[in-house]
């Protein structure tokens, strides 16, 4: 089947404003969803779910949230881990302190708490810009790290400061098996990805991007910088907070503040950049690149039966991974999502070179 737009005339603006205006794309995404929801659960192994797909989905969700802030609104954040942690610990408290709290409600409330903290630490963005803003978000990062370790109330006075949850269920269905966890994450991610996509393609999304590209000009055409920036912080930290809940509840089960350390913040930022700033799809590409690639690289020597020591393998993985980051940036500085769309553009022209 040739990948062509020709002949697909859009007769209404509604048709043109669809998320996937091209028929082939719609088919492809449908097939992808069918595979993700039906085929993968049938054939996937425990390892695939627990070690690869679940973390991938959750971190992709977090990256998606971060992408709204960094990619769409242009506000650099190194506090993603903090907002995840706020989501996770808040949801934990709702769950243990309120009897019969449903998981989904706890999750959304966790997200809301993250929103509040996100907006709070977003306020300096009205004055501080660019890399300098990183300080505000780093303050959030280290402050929450510290608070969750030191303030016993947050951890329900657990002696070590590590907490855990058990017996998760949604509408009475237990979220225990790998498949159930995977499907739950997948569903949440799909819903949020759709919501995020909707936001970025409507007025607020354009406001964010306008602020990102040129804030003075945006103000001149009537966009309130404060509103745009703070909504970006709010929406972003909400999604990130929900991702934090999933990470803690569904993926780890038991966690300590270190699960949301600065390393996590950096990791997510890198996902967003390598995946493609300002692209919902980019969050998924980025998460795949940063999470899945090292795992695969790690196993390559084994597949080929190359006898390498653990340390050597690990060093090589580091080097190859680093080199690949640079390589992909050279090929396409705007990230994998852009690479993808250029690929599609070429496909559209194919077999003619231009």
């Amino acid at each position, binding site marked *: 089947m040739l990948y062509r737009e020709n002949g697909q005339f859009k007769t209404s603006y509604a048709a043109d404003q669809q998320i996937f205006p091209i028929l082939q794309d719609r088919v492809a995404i449908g097939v992808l969803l069918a595979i993700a929801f039906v085929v993968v659960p049938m054939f996937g192994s425990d390892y695939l779910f627990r070690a690869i797909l679940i973390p991938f989905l959750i971190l992709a969700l977090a990256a998606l949230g971060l992408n709204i802030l960094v990619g769409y609104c242009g506000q650099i954040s190194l506090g993603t881990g903090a907002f995840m942690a706020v989501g996770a610990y808040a949801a934990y408290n709702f769950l243990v302190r309120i009897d019969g709290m449903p998981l989904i409600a706890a999750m959304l409330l966790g997200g809301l708490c993250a929103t509040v903290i996100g907006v709070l630490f977003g306020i300096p963005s009205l004055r501080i810009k660019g890399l300098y803003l990183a300080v505000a978000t780093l303050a959030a990062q280290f402050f929450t790290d510290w608070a969750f370790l030191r303030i016993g109330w947050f951890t329900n006075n657990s002696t070590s400061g590590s907490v855990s949850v058990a017996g998760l269920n949604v509408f009475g269905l237990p979220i225990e098996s790998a498949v159930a966890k995977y499907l739950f994450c997948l569903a949440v991610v799909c819903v949020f990805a759709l919501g995020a996509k909707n936001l970025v393609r409507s007025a607020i999304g354009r406001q964010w991007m306008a602020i990102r590209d040129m804030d003075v000009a945006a103000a001149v055409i009537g966009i309130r910088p404060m509103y745009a920036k703070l909504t970006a912080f709010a929406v972003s930290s909400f999604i990130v907070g929900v991702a934090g809940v999933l990470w803690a509840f569904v993926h780890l089960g038991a966690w300590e503040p270190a699960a949301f350390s600065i390393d996590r913040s950096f990791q997510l930022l890198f996902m967003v950049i390598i995946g493609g700033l300002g692209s919902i799809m980019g969050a998924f590409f980025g998460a795949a690149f940063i999470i899945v690639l090292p795992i695969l690289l790690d196993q390559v020597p084994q597949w080929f039966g190359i006898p390498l020591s653990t340390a050597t393998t690990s060093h090589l993985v580091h080097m190859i991974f680093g080199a690949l980051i640079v390589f992909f940036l050279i090929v396409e*500085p705007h990230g994998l999502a852009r690479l993808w769309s*250029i690929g599609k*553009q*070429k496909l559209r022209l194919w077999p003619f070179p*231009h």
Partner: protein
Amino acid sequence: MNPANLLLDVNGIEVIYNHVALVLKGVSLQVPEGRIVAILGGNGAGKTTTLRAISNLLKGERGEVTKGRIELEGERIEALSPSELVRRGVVQVMEGRHCFAHLTIEENLLAGAYTRKDKGEIAANLDKVYAYFPRLKTRRTSQAAYTSGGEQQMCAIGRALMSSPRMVLLDEPSMGLAPQIVEEVFEIVKDLNVKEKVSFLLAEQNTMVALRYSDFGYIVENGRIVMEGEARDLASNEDVKEFYLGLSGEGRKSFRDVKHYRRRKRWLS
């Protein structure tokens, strides 16, 4: 043209941006030593791209020359770095000014002299530029970002002159300049051309002035050269008159009265 004193020879170049957008579709042009050559054409014709291809600044725009040759005095220069080209005397004034925002006007100018090592020469050049653009002298200590658009344009031109070039690629030098400064800029061009034998290749929208001051002109449309000739001949060509000079049979038409429907350009059939 006499190939013996050919300074720059661009031969059938194609340029592709981002691996997908073919923008120049075989552009050839020549600049003989000591001449002023103009590239004219509408928005998006490919003038800037041509200049970038010559000065090797395409890479940063993710563009590349995929076909054709570019020669400076018979030597291929596609592989040379932009700075090497400046060292050989080819300097470009970029479209849209591109002053160093955080540097003062004077620092901008001095940065332009990076390739010159002779202190005396640099000082002399600086004086020359200030003499050309007295406005810059009054603003010499302001950061470039806080000067007016026209001042920045002067700064960009002055900065290029600081490297004592043999050949200048001027991209829309008149943009944003007040009319009498435009005249002055072209007087400067003429002056340098005559006195110091500097060659110019200029991309310009202000066709009237450009043709008045240049020796030879190329007209680019859609990534192709559609017409070329001595400046005088071009200026008297009917099409050029209508589309680039805004003159019709009975002289200049008022901007208030332009028709809503216009004749199609002959070469766009």
